[in-house]
């Protein structure tokens, strides 16, 4: 191939658009347009805010999953972890009993620490045990899930103090300047995640490890530290999602967070992050999470497909997203 030296300034470099990066946003716009055509109630501020609010849990978890997946890992335990963290947090709050902000702060701190520890456990087993993350997190998924069932004695863990519930309520139902709190939390998490992944050396190292672990090792990247940290970030994101989730229902059950891992992974992949690692897209993940919720919303608002088939449609979306990514890869 004829190669000519290119020594000029970075000019004339953006003539080819990166379709892989853009496709989730295009899909989002198409979906919004489709929704608007199908039902006039769709394109209202209240409906759209509702959709984004509902997507917040998955989006927050999926931001963490973006780190794990773009670093070449996988975390299947997030749904069970969410249930465990929620259950433990409610139990702590019930123990404390009194309804003042310091109790709530302590409960939240416990949730964050527990989430980080769960992530740390996943990370350490993956890095030091040299076991496939799929297997490790499949195992911890079962462990976390059965721990929450055990804590709940098979039933429901409910936040008993109604004053405390009232105090906590705004974390899900409150608004700041008309924007629901979950959306603000979700945007903050995504923004921090984007800075971390795109602007820091840690983020660079995550991508390097996901791209080729050997090259990273030969380049002096501290593999185990970076990889473990991605799982810790995932755990923290799960805990943050739980902080917003608990006031919604005020309880944790054995089915809390069921299949969230699939939704989170779907959001990440639909967003353009490579499942084999090396490419990470935080804002794509955000778009992916909203797409999943939008699809459900449109299905409820329209009468084309039974809303009981939401899972099937979401499953189809991840497959289509992979096919689209594949076709762009070939074009490169």
């Amino acid at each position, binding site marked *: *191939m*004829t*190669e*000519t*030296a*290119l*020594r000029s300034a*970075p000019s004339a*470099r953006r003539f080819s658009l990166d379709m892989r990066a853009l496709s989730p946003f295009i899909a989002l716009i198409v979906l919004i347009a489709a929704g608007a055509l199908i039902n006039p109630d769709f394109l209202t501020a209240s409906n759209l805010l509702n959709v984004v609010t509902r997507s917040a849990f998955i989006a927050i978890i999926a931001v963490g999953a973006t780190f794990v997946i773009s670093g070449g890992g996988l975390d299947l335990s997030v749904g069970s972890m969410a249930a465990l963290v929620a259950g433990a947090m409610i139990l702590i709050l019930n123990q404390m009993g009194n309804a003042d902000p310091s109790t709530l702060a302590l409960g939240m701190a416990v949730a964050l620490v527990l989430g980080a520890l769960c992530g740390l456990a996943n990370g350490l087993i993956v890095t030091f045990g040299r076991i496939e993350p799929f297997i490790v997190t499949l195992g911890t998924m079962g462990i976390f899930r059965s721990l929450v069932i055990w804590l709940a004695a098979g039933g429901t863990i409910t936040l008993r103090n109604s004053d405390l519930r009232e105090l906590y309520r705004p974390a899900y139902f409150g608004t700041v300047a008309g924007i629901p709190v979950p959306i603000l939390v979700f945007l903050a998490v995504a923004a921090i995640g984007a800075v971390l992944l795109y*602007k*820091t*050396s*840690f*983020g*660079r*190292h995550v*991508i*390097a490890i996901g*791209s*080729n672990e*050997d*090259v*990273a*090792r*030969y*380049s*002096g*990247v*501290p593999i185990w530290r970076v990889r473990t940290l991605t799982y810790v970030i995932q755990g923290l994101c799960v805990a943050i999602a739980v902080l917003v989730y608990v006031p919604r229902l005020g309880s944790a059950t054995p089915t809390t967070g069921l299949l969230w891992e699939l939704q989170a992974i779907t959001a990440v992949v639909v967003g353009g992050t490579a499942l084999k690692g*090396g*490419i990470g897209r935080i804002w794509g993940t955000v778009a992916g999470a909203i797409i999943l919720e939008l699809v459900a919303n449109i299905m409820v608002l329209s009468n084309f497909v039974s809303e009981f088939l939401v899972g099937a449609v979401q499953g189809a979306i991840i497959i289509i997203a992979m096919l689209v990514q594949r076709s762009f890869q070939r074009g490169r």
Partner: protein
Amino acid sequence: MASVLRAEHISKTFGSIEVLSDISLDLQPGEVHAVIGENGAGKSTLMRILSGHLRPSGGTLYLDGDLVHFTGPVEAEARGIVLVHQEILLAEDLTVLENVFLGREMTRLGFVDDKAMRDRTRAVLRDLGSAIDPDRLVRTLSIADRQLVQIARALLVPHRIVAFDEPTAVLTPVEAESLFAIIRQLRTQGVAVLYISHRLNEVKAIADRVTVLRDGRLVANRTIEGLEPLEMARLMVGRDMSRLYPDKPATHAGEVILSVEDFSVPGHVQDASFVLRRGEILGFGGLIGAGRTELFEGLVGLRPSSGSLRIRGTPARFRDALQAMRAGVVYLSEDRKGKGLLLQQNLRMNVTLAALDRFTRATMVKRHEEEAALDEAIRDFDIRARRRDMLAGQLSGGNQQKLLLAKMMLIDPEIVIIDEPTRGVDIGTKQQIYRFIAELAEQGRSVIVISSEMQELIGLCHRVVVMRGGQIVGEIEEADLSEDAIVFLATGVHEERAAEIAAGYP
């Protein structure tokens, strides 16, 4: 004589880029036809067109005088044209025989007939002068043996034209000799052999005719008589190549930078001891598998190891590459694609990866300083990239090596260990890399060059240490450097004997 394969005015474009233009070539039965050219000259593309892997954008192919349009490699293979790929394309977890027959298994009553396939595999391998057990897993074979398995796989089908794409890149001299014996045998059978290589001495030894490509164009088509390697290089590069190696910089003898004593890497290296001086270029010779790569991977903390290591007299021990880099020791892997560069990532990310600390403030990466570093790397190392935002994997082999050099030099190392600096690199780039290595020594850095190309060690190094079977077996001073001396130490036999051994004489 009637040609068996004739290509007329072949051209190939990828998008808007013309990779081949107006190439004509004819191939006689019973001749070895070498195709040479720099990396990116279009040799591999031409080979892929001739063997049906690619369709030409223009021009025609004639097989036995009949116009042919191959729809794919399967059809070309059915017509007797086989290609031995440059890369090893084998399934590592399957056995030798399973690989040899992959996709064309022999069956009996609908079940695979392992016994028949085992016998056939053994026979084909024996013809190639090899006694590899057909039931061994490919994973356990050396690179050279894998290459042989790949050749066996290609030769299994009835063949009239065999194309070898840089077959000796991973072979030791002894193994290369046996490959030449195979090629000569094919020639006497009336098979036409297409042979692509960077190694011009090999081409001189084996080829009957030479076609030279430069920038996708045909430069020359000559018989081998009277065509010397130096002239071939001149044709390939388009300028005089008589000064491939730079002058060796004068060493500041005496001051020892690195001393290694009784250094072992379990399973690969036993009790290696040597010293490296300031401003010195120290070569490490030996056959592939002699433990050179493993020794230095152990040294920089990439493998578990034991033994004593002193830098300027201070004991040191590295647990990972980062610690070695902090002490001023860098290792450039021979496996550029697998261990050196992130092929899926852009040049900027690659060039700063190892020295990222220098480009961060409060852990935030400073993008504009990275861009400046890339500019500098592209300028200083003459990295030729079509676009600035292209991926490392889209660069040619030579430019990848320059990018890897640029990446590691950002650490400003005192000791530079380069493993196979010119593997898969064209001759023009080689010259640049040699000059660069000499400059490193002139700057007072110390360089270790691990190479399987003896000419390179002789032309470049002040001193050459030779390893065999995981041990250091000798050291050759500058005045005594010769191919024969290196081969003798590396194999325990003299070069003529090596050829004889390969040819099957006891």
